[in-house]
């Protein structure tokens, strides 16, 4: 137990002068008075602080959202929510919200426009564009995947294949590998595991509250946690072992783990014989990837690699490399192979469909909502080239390539774009390049606030109602953590909309009605909810009252999927886990994962060169929470914008803790203050992914810290189309930008 440093906190907070105050807040006395005046109420709904969409109860007093607590049933929260979940509720009152539909005028300024007029103008313009350039010139770009059900009717009707998600900036390397090799994705069964590796994966930063609860419970029950990450992340805080790997070399580490398991015959032979295809080919390709070979590359001693492999094997099948999401899976040129090796090592442990290993999600069976009135047009090739022969054939077409939209526009493939709940100008590489999205004939931004994408590229901003102001269709509660029974949750309106905003379905109905396609969205949300719930036996009333309901059907079983004949029945060509990805081979690429060098490496002789890496802080969801005064209060108090640098490297450069430095890449140079720490690998510097806001209409986020996307050019990882966002070398010099 360290001694508490008296005053250390107050000193730090003295720097944090005024940030905008949240109207949510009343003084204590005011509150007491208000509470006496009126009884409040609480409504179950789901959080929107990140894509986990935890079940929550929102308490309202005097018609104002007061506070949030976790829903006791919802498997992601189980009564406990994270800082973002609390903080983002208050964003309903944020001054940065777009308060009604907006149109960019001839002076390049936004002016209010009525919904009717906006629908009319957008409808006309879109009809013109489709008439002239065809339906395939329309792009729907979103975070994913919530808007898809309202994008699809229009995309199908006009014949556009261009539905693109943010996933290429986040984790497509993982989903691509799993789709090709396993045909599904599985989750770590943290609660029952005995040995868990979190590699480049900060589960305590990208939080699922109940997932963390399961992990800490497992640890109390004796499970071992090993974190492999160049940065001592929040999950490393509770790890038994933190192994700081040279960034970009995780693939080599995983190849060496497989090498130890195979050469020492510590892998699960029965499992491999029964359920794995291409094992022999894999081994032929990778016989030389020994721990000694990997030590050279990763900086991790060969003995340590052996130790980890032995521990994995000793605890198998209640042991795994966490499948993860963002971490490692859009970061490097070898990210797809790294994800493939995650599958290989886990399969060698025989942990698929095993308690304490990897388990499937329990999914409810929803009814589909059918409505008549729209025919499907033939669709053209995807503008981003995802899945297109001769272009990015091996990239998943269902996810697309989000970072190359300006290129699609420049090539004349895209003329009109709708951007829903996504801010590529801040969360995709090279914002100056992303600004060219504006060159499309029509850009409609359907976002909550005055984000960078709206401000710099939109012709129209059609503000969606805040998540506490709208009801959506029921959701399956699943993904990333393990649970036996399916759950269904409902996001529902907690208060009346504060501003002139609308839910997405209504916006789409308004526009398409003007296009003479009013039938596309001619149904009510209640129709949808009823149709979806039909097979579940759950009534809309019950779901609305309870918020989250656990079904007692469709229990997941710890057994490998088999056909009636007894053969393995995964959705791959052989029904087995395939160590070689067919699709990659068909494209003339390597199907079997083997070593690929990172694209760039810092020059070991240059003390001022570093790889720039980034990650999540537990109180931010990348940039989306960065204008929230409650969360930024934490940023300021705890110096969350600082760039982490290893102490020895800092000493060599004469840099002290708190110094201002200039960080430069081929793209830009920026000033930032430094946190000098032992807790990071000397080859890299780290920043949080939350900052660097440049929309001056978002006061709290504006000009606060820097963002990694400023330093990287637009790149496309050859297998999965991701941004390779850590393939960048920066130079760091003491002092500000001269």
């Amino acid at each position, binding site marked *: *137990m*360290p*001694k*508490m*440093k*008296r005053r*250390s*906190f107050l000193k730090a*907070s003295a720097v*944090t002068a*005024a940030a905008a*105050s949240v109207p*949510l*807040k*009343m*003084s*204590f*006395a*005011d509150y007491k008075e208000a509470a006496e005046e009126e009884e409040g109420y609480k409504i179950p709904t789901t959080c929107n602080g990140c894509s986990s969409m935890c079940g929550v109860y929102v308490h309202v007093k005097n018609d104002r959202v007061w*506070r*949030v*607590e*976790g829903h006791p049933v919802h498997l992601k929260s189980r009564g*406990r*929510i*994270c*800082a973002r*979940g*609390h*903080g983002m*509720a*208050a964003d309903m009152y944020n001054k940065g919200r777009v308060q009604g539909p907006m149109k960019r005028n001839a002076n390049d300024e936004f002016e209010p426009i009525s919904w009717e007029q906006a629908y009319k103008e957008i409808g006309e313009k879109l009809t013109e564009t489709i008439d002239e350039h065809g339906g395939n010139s329309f792009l729907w770009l979103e975070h994913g995947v919530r808007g898809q059900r309202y994008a699809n009717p229009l995309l199908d009707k006009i014949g556009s294949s261009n539905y693109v998600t943010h996933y290429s900036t986040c984790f497509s390397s993982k989903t691509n590998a799993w789709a090709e090799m396993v045909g599904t994705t599985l989750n770590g069964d943290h609660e029952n595991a005995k040995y868990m590796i979190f590699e480049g994966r900060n589960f*305590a930063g990208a*939080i699922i*509250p*109940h997932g*963390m*609860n399961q992990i*800490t419970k497992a640890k109390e029950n004796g499970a071992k946690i090993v974190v492999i990450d160049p940065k*001592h992340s*929040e*999950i*490393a*805080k*509770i790890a038994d072992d*933190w*192994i700081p790997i040279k960034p970009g070399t995780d693939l080599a580490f995983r190849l060496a783990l497989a090498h130890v398991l195979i050469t020492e015959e510590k892998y699960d032979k029965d499992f491999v014989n029964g359920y794995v295809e291409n094992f022999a080919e894999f081994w032929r390709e990778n016989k030389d990837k020994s721990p000694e070979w990997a030590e050279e590359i990763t900086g991790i001693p060969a003995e340590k690699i052996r130790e980890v492999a032995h521990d994995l094997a000793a605890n198998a099948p209640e042991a795994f490399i966490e499948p993860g999401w963002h971490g490692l899976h859009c970061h490097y040129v070898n990210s797809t192979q790294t994800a493939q090796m995650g599958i290989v090592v886990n399969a060698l442990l025989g942990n698929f469909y095993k308690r304490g290993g990897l388990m499937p999600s329990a999914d409810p069976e929803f009814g589909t909502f059918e409505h008549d009135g729209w025919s499907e047009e033939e669709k053209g090739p995807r503008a981003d080239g995802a899945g297109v022969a001769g272009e990015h054939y091996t990239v998943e077409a269902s996810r697309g390539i989000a970072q190359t939209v300006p290129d699609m526009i420049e090539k004349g493939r895209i003329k009109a774009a709708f951007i829903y709940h996504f801010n590529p100008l801040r969360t995709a590489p090279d914002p100056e390049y992303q600004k060219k999205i504006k060159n499309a004939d029509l850009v409609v931004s359907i976002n909550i606030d005055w984000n960078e994408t709206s401000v710099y590229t939109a012709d129209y901003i059609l503000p969606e109602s805040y998540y506490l102001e709208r009801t959506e269709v029921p959701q399956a509660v699943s993904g990333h953590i393990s649970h036996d029974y399916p759950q269904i949750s409902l996001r529902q309106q907690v208060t009346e909309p504060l501003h002139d905003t609308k839910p997405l379905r209504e916006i789409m109905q308004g526009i398409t009605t003007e296009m003479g396609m009013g039938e596309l969205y001619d149904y009510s949300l209640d129709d949808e909810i009823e149709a979806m719930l039909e097979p579940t036996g759950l009534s809309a009333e019950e779901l609305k009252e309870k918020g989250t309901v656990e079904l007692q059907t469709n229990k997941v079983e710890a057994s490998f999927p088999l056909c009636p004949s007894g053969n393995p029945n995964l959705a791959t060509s052989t029904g087995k886990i395939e160590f070689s990805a067919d699709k990659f081979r068909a494209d003339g690429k390597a199907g079997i994962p083997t070593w690929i060098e990172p694209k760039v490496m810092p020059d070991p002789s240059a003390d001022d060169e570093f790889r720039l890496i980034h990650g999540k802080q*537990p*109180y931010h969801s990348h940039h989306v929470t960065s204008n929230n*005064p*409650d*969360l930024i209060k*934490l940023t300021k*108090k*705890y110096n969350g914008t600082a760039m982490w640098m290893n*102490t020895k490297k800092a000493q060599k450069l004469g840099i002290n803790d708190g110094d201002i430095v200039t960080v430069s890449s081929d793209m830009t140079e920026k000033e930032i203050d430094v946190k000098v*720490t*032992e*807790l990071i*690998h000397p080859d890299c510097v780290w920043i949080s992914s939350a900052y660097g806001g440049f929309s001056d209409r978002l006061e709290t986020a504006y000009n606060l810290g820097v963002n990694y996307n400023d330093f990287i050019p637009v790149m496309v990882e050859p297998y999965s189309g991701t941004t390779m966002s850590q393939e960048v070398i920066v130079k760091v010099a003491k002092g500000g930008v001269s």
Partner: protein
Amino acid sequence: MAQYGLLIDATKCTGCHACSIACSQYNELEEEVDYNRLEFVERGSFPNCAMDIVPVQCMHCDDAPCVNVCSTMATFQQEDGIVGFDPQKCTGCKACMAACPYDARALNEARLAEKCRWCPEMLQQGKQPVCSSTCMNEVRLFGDLEDPDSEINQKMAKHEVEQLRPDMGTKPRIWYIKK
């Protein structure tokens, strides 16, 4: 009469700050006011190094310097042990702030020296204070020290525990599980 206390397992804390923000919202705290906070301490040198995180807040001291110096009884110890605060009686003299060894009090806009009250409205409903109930890692276990069967007593019995700055003689009601 229940006697309240809090057992903190700081080894499990991952620094998510949910406790402090849940508290701020529940108590409608102003921008500059916080009832609880985290202290971060690095130890060791690369690559053999680690981070400690210690949640700190009002310790609800049994021998509370803040109670002793408060001339108006605005700060007082309740029968259940909780050190309460009555803003109506506070004159804003700041004596309690100076006396508190844990920096647990904060001046609000009205210049009153607020502090954690252990969420009496939640206790009345038989619930934990909001910082405890939201903590995903179950770092904070609040409970009745009088009841031998309470979870807090049972857990306390299983571990070695310590208090922050016992040398100050304040007899805090918060214990920390030793590493």
